[in-house]
């Protein structure tokens, strides 16, 4: 089925009640040209689930060049464990060179992480998604209630779609909590990044990630030096009455 035939809003309302495995099964039944985004952290549960449905599922990973060595080792471990190819994506060298030449290696501590993330993650992600009809992420609502509280399990991804075409994005773990993810990892003996055993709840680039303490939200382990900023681009849909 082609993506334009999918009414993602209606399907989302049905899939919201389904477990991640069923959402993945639906996604893989609808799309051949679909890939799973793997960060080298606890989203490994998606790899575990997806390879049981489609053993040769396409997987890609964003290597920002700043990951922990433990994460690189874990990506390789996952590749071997699931016997899959992982397409490791890299940022454009000239863009990184320009950033570092102008602002140094740790500019994000002075002017926030967005510029660095845009070069090291968003640009290569954007290029990769131009190849696909659909993609799967490990995004969960509980990762950051401020920015992810309303993510659907399926959505029409207008941000990264090819011009005049559609791209469908699946978030099978949207409604799972961190606890559910870890229950799955332990119940099924899923391999995981060793940094988790050292207090890292959320794992990203090495300079921007730190362990968290008891009762700290995982978000506090990422970009902790930045103040929460007021996001004003969202439209408050609750204000919109039905016509």
């Amino acid at each position, binding site marked *: 089925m082609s993506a334009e035939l999918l009414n993602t*809003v209606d399907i989302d309302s049905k899939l919201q009640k389904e477990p991640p495995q069923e959402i993945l099964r639906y996604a893989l039944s609808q799309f051949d040209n679909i890939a799973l*985004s793997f*960060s080298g952290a606890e989203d490994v549960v998606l790899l575990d689930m997806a390879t049981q449905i489609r053993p040769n599922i396409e997987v890609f990973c*964003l290597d920002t060049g700043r990951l922990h060595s433990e994460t690189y080792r874990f990506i390789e471990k996952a590749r071997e464990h699931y016997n899959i190819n992982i397409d490791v994506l890299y940022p*454009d060298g000239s*863009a990184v060179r*320009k950033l570092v030449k102008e602002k140094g290696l740790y500019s994000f501590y002075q002017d926030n*992480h*967005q*510029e660095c*993330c*845009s*070069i090291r*993650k*968003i*640009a290569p*992600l*954007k290029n990769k998604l131009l190849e696909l009809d659909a993609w799967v*992420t490990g*995004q969960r609502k509980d*990762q*950051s209630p*401020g*920015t*992810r509280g309303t*993510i659907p399990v399926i959505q*029409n991804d*207008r*941000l990264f779609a090819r*011009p*005049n075409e559609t791209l469908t994005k699946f978030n099978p773990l949207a409604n799972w909590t961190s606890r559910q993810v870890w229950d799955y990892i332990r119940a099924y003996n899923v391999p995981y990044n060793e940094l988790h055993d050292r207090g890292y709840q*959320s794992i*990203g680039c090495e300079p921007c990630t730190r362990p968290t303490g008891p009762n700290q939200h995982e978000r506090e382990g*990422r*970009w902790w030096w930045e103040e929460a900023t007021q*996001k*004003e*681009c*969202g*439209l*408050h*849909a609750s*204000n*919109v*009455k039905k*016509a």
Partner: protein
Amino acid sequence: MKITLVKKILADGSPCKKCGDVLQKLEESGHMSRIDEVLVADEREPNSAGLQLAKDLNVHRAPFFVVEKEGQDPEVHTVYLKFVKDVLEQSTSASDEALEIMNDNPDLDFI
């Protein structure tokens, strides 16, 4: 082809900063003449034309552009620089476009 720009007024009556930035860029580049209609999504007015259009098209952020071509479904663009490149056919910097996406979509930083 008809191009509609939807800009936002916040609940406190102030204009959305990004909308202002986009309007300024459109004016400075001379592209404002390509915009056929500007609608306001006023958070104080649930029935404002911009909010209704956003609801109809399932758009959750502003500013955004709607491109209508005869016989085709409307295209929605929420990334200004992508709109400039794809619709107005002006070259843009890949880095600038990626930064706009990152700045406007904080949920992506966990990817």
